[in-house]
């Protein structure tokens, strides 16, 4: 198998290569490090490559295997994290000049969990400054580009998390999702993006964007890889007040029979989630719907809560929380922030306390209303985004005669589920005629990631939605 071919294998296949001794963890790590050296000048996905740390971890994984010490499915598997996530002794920039000297004193909880599995940390990934923005454009560390068209954006805020996997520079990554920041770049790059239930993966050791909306998520090539990363990283963290105290299962997503989704009810909310979208994206989503029906699922039309105030509520929660976290740094080094982030913080200053509390009460209303929808269906299906990856520098998009800021458009179908906290996953739904991937989003009940994985796997296995690998060289 060529290096290029190995680089694009899912974790399950890489794990088999390591298990059989066809490849050592050191060789696999070196393969990715070499690709980072060759290709990341174009991809712009890494901010810091932890080469020495990666080789040490890979060597330890190989030694364990040689000594017959039981290995996990992630032992020796390289991965990388968005540069908001702390790795002890390594710079966490958060994509900002403000944190140019911010060396992490300890590992984030999830990095510790991954270390326990024997996985190999390759480095820290690019992002929109402090995850505040969905284009991933970053004037300090450069802008991660789309592997399918380097004139287009990888999108964000977890831009590096998507670009690194899409360019074959690592097999999987972690990002954070406050309004769609894992799901959108994953969808734009033809990957699987998972935002688990709020609190499922601890956010301790992760620089916050907005405590109330932040979720740690994964970017992978396959649904089973997403399930593997979730079951390896999710665990109750008594030191994280938002951590969910529920065990995370080892997911078995084997699909059997010709109608493996029999009995499952999939909700379609035509209002809002099928409006003002690219026609090819809508057609692909409808095609997924028909495929799921053929696999036995019942497709049911549902009415979601009114989304009229959704963005107002999200912004009103985000900006005061961001200002509160950044208060100390604004005083000490306020001139190091980017213009757009400072503008957002200034906005946070001008909202009243009652505005913030009312927005949080609307979040509660959204949760209750969405839970009511889940009494009738097991999950929801929507497009991941109404648009494909935009060209660099795009400010706005016009759909059905309505012009909208590009960042707002990209996250229009994802933001709501950060407020409700329901788990959501995006999987490819095919290629757009402009040569870019499209995706669909599945949203499930709280802590029912298992059903998401099952249905996402059914979509993944339908050849109609399979997309070609990018050809980044």
């Amino acid at each position: 198998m060529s290096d290029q071919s190995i680089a694009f294998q899912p974790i399950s296949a890489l794990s088999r290569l390591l298990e059989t001794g066809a490849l050592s963890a050191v060789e696999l790590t070196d393969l990715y490090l070499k690709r980072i050296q060759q290709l990341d000048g174009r991809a712009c996905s890494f901010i810091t490559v932890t080469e020495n740390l990666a080789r040490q971890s890979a060597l330890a994984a190989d030694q364990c295997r040689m000594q017959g010490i039981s290995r996990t499915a992630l032992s020796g598997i390289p991965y990388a994290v968005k540069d908001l996530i702390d790795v002890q002794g390594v710079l966490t920039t958060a994509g900002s000049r403000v944190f140019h000297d911010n060396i992490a004193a300890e590992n984030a909880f999830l990095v510790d969990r991954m270390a326990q599995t024997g996985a190999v940390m390759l480095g820290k990934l690019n992002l929109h400054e402090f995850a505040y923005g969905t284009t991933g454009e970053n004037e300090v560390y450069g802008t991660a580009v789309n592997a399918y068209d380097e004139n287009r954006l990888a999108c964000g805020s977890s831009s590096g998390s998507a670009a690194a996997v899409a360019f074959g520079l690592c097999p999987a990554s972690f990002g954070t999702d406050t309004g769609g920041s894992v799901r959108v770049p994953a969808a734009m790059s033809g990957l699987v993006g998972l935002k688990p239930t709020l609190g499922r993966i601890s956010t301790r050791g992760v620089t916050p964007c907005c405590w109330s909306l932040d979720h740690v998520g994964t970017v992978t090539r396959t649904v089973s890889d997403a399930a593997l990363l979730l079951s390896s990283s999710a665990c109750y963290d008594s030191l994280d007040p938002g951590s969910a105290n529920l065990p995370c299962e080892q997911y078995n997503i084997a699909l059997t029979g010709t109608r493996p989704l029999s009995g499952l009810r999939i909700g379609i909310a035509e209002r809002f989630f099928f409006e003002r979208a690219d026609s090819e994206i809508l057609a692909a989503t409808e095609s997924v719907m028909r495929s799921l029906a053929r696999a036995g699922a019942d497709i049911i039309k549902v009415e979601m809560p009114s989304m009229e105030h959704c963005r107002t509520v999200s912004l009103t929660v985000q900006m005061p929380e961001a200002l509160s976290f950044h208060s100390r740094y604004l005083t000490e080094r306020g001139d190091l922030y980017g213009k757009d982030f400072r503008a957002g913080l200034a906005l946070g200053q001008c909202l009243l306390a009652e505005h913030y509390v009312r927005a949080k009460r609307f979040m509660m209303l959204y949760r209750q209303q969405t839970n009511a929808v889940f009494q009738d269906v097991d999950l929801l299906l929507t497009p991941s985004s109404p648009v494909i990856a935009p060209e660099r520098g795009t400010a706005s998009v016009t759909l059905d005669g309505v012009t909208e800021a590009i960042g707002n458009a990209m996250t229009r179908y994802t933001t709501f589920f950060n407020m409700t906290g329901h788990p959501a996953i995006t999987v490819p739904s095919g290629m757009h005629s402009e040569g870019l991937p499209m995706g669909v989003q599945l949203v499930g009940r709280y802590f029912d990631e298992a059903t998401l994985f099952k249905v996402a796997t059914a979509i993944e296995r339908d050849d109609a939605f399979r997309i070609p690998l990018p050809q980044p060289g």
Partner: protein
Amino acid sequence: MKSLEKQTLVNICEQMAAHSWSDAELNELVAPQMGIITGLQDLLKALDKLRQIDLGALPPATNVQNK
């Protein structure tokens, strides 16, 4: 609700426990020119609509799991 005036924001910065913002940043909040953010004025109008919706005794959202 009257339109927001820049002097209101200047007063907030000067008279309440608040961070300082440059003249250009305050101008941008009142009348966006750079297209960096949605204007505060628009947001305040949207928040005024939210204020008119009765939420009864609904509490703010916290965790999704009661431990």
